[in-house]
């Protein structure tokens, strides 16, 4: 089976007026399907750059990245966007739901992007059940939900297109510890059901839920 994500000697340099900044320095690693990985490191270590590259929001300066065996380096913007839509689910620290859409519409959004038309809300309801959000909230807008409920909606949105990988950026960073724990338990459940999860975090409590931790220091993998 091909790795869910494979980094091969990846270098990322940001050319700035003040001089080039080396954000990632010859990084290589693999994430197998079904793994739950946490990526930790201090501020400025290259975590966000790594997340952007894994999420196909950016391309490496040198080296290769493969998502489920597909090389992304030569892809154009349209192909990268389709890859994000179909293979990757994003979960953000600040939930990042669309304030103008209700819960069902938020969850259905990636599905509508994929199909190019309005879709049946049944699958969205099914996924919302899986993330344990009660039916009564389905027609609410994000502003009418608590932080934990919003993050459940965000997880449901990330899962709706059956992605190969779930990329989480500090998923509990904006939640209280109790809600954060319930969200991490939900992620663990999803992982047990087969989801590949990569979680970028500062929080060692979050990292404890993962099977493996990659530590980044100064753009290199420390351990």
């Amino acid at each position, binding site marked *: 089976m091909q790795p869910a994500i494979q980094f091969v000697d990846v270098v990322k340099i940001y050319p700035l007026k003040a001089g080039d900044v080396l954000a990632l320095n010859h990084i290589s690693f693999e994430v197998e399907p079904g793994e739950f990985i946490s990526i930790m490191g201090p501020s400025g270590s290259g975590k966000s750059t790594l997340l952007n590259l894994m999420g196909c*929001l950016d391309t490496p300066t040198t080296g290769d990245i493969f998502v489920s065996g597909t090389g992304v380096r030569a892809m154009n913007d*349209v192909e990268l966007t389709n890859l994000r839509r179909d293979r990757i689910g*994003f979960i953000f620290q600040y939930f990042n739901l669309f304030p103008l*859409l209700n819960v069902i*519409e938020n969850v259905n959004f990636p599905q*509508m*992007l*994929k199909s190019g038309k*309005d879709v049946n809300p049944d699958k969205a309801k099914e996924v919302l059940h899986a993330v344990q959000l009660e039916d009564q909230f389905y027609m609410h807008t994000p502003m009418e939900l608590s932080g934990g409920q919003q993050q459940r909606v965000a997880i449901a*949105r990330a899962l709706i297109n059956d992605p190969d990988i779930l990329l989480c950026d500090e998923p509990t960073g904006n939640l209280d510890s109790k809600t954060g724990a319930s969200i991490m338990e939900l992620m663990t459940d999803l992982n047990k059901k087969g989801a590949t999860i990569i979680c970028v975090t500062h929080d060692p409590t979050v990292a404890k839920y993962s099977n493996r931790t990659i530590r980044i220091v100064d753009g290199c993998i420390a351990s």
Partner: protein
Amino acid sequence: MIFWEIAKRNIRIHVLRSTLAMLGIVIGVVAIAAMGILGNSLVATVSDSLKSVGDSVIVTPYSGGGGMMGGGGGGGGGSSENLKITDQNFQQIQRTVAPNVAIPVYSTSEHMKIGVGSDDIVTTIYGVPSADVPDMMKLQAGDYNNGNSGCLVGSTFAKDHDLKVGSRISIGTDGSKGTLRVTGIIEERGMSFDISTDNALVVTDNWFENTYNRNGDYDEVVVKVKDGDTADVKTAIEKQLNKRKDNKIVSVTDSKATLNTIYATFGTVTTFVSAIGGISMVVAGVSIFNIMMMSVNERIKEIGIMRSIGTQKKEVMSMFIYEAAIIGVIGSIIGGIFSILAGWAVSALMLGTTKYLLTMANAISVSEAVGFGIIICLSCGIYPAWQAANLNPIDALRHE
């Protein structure tokens, strides 16, 4: 589609801002369409007034200058006192334009009185062969058979002096040139190139010749072109009578060509006035551009999220284009409806009539203004939409 829905909802939550932008478009469309309607109505009014003379060629004595705008209104004024068209020239014209009818016209200004003790009036008297009168004018009352002591009077003259069929007019100072009986009232002709009868009297050529001792020295000749083109008739007359370039005999005016020049001038004026109205549309466009840029700036993070979860650039762009289109279409349609009301008001106030409001030309003017409004809105939405679509998703996601 979801982007259409988002565009609609975004307009709804910023209802005041969107309404003000729409108001700008409404004003722009009304300004352009109302000016167009006014121009079209003006052309229609003039056209109605002049349509009866559109088939005439007017021949006047050559006075040394260029062509003239018409020989009516008193026989060309003082400078043409001694310039006449001779009977021989008239017969040449008659032969040249056959089978079209050439009508010789005398004209002079004369004092007259209506009733005993009335004020002295000065107006124009035309002398036209009785047989040719029906070719030149229509009557609203009485009949053409005015005999030697009868006359036809223009509708304005009749109205101003309370004249009816059978009324009597003393001609000349103290009635020195006799009395004429009104046998018919001429229908209003408005502006014309040949003779202006609304404020004049029309008598027989015999009466005119006897009274003013004239014989075969006409002030103008009007050719009613029923066979062929007025331009060809004009050329034929010039070729026949103005053989020598240094000794021209007549000036020839093609009324149709003059009319076309007038229409073209009105068209230019209408376009110019509409263009001035267009300035308000440009201002409205700037307002749309402004609110679209605000909309993009407020939603940078949202755009970043959309792009990160798989929204294509063109889909982001479509969302903002839909927003501009909704404002443009609603604003322009409301503007179109208001412009009909504005056109009605402007026509009523400036032209005194609204009978030319519901015409195809006005429908086109309104449609053009509505279309222009929509195009302006879409154009002003394109750059902000493009900018939104081309935001770097990573930078947009970081935006606070």
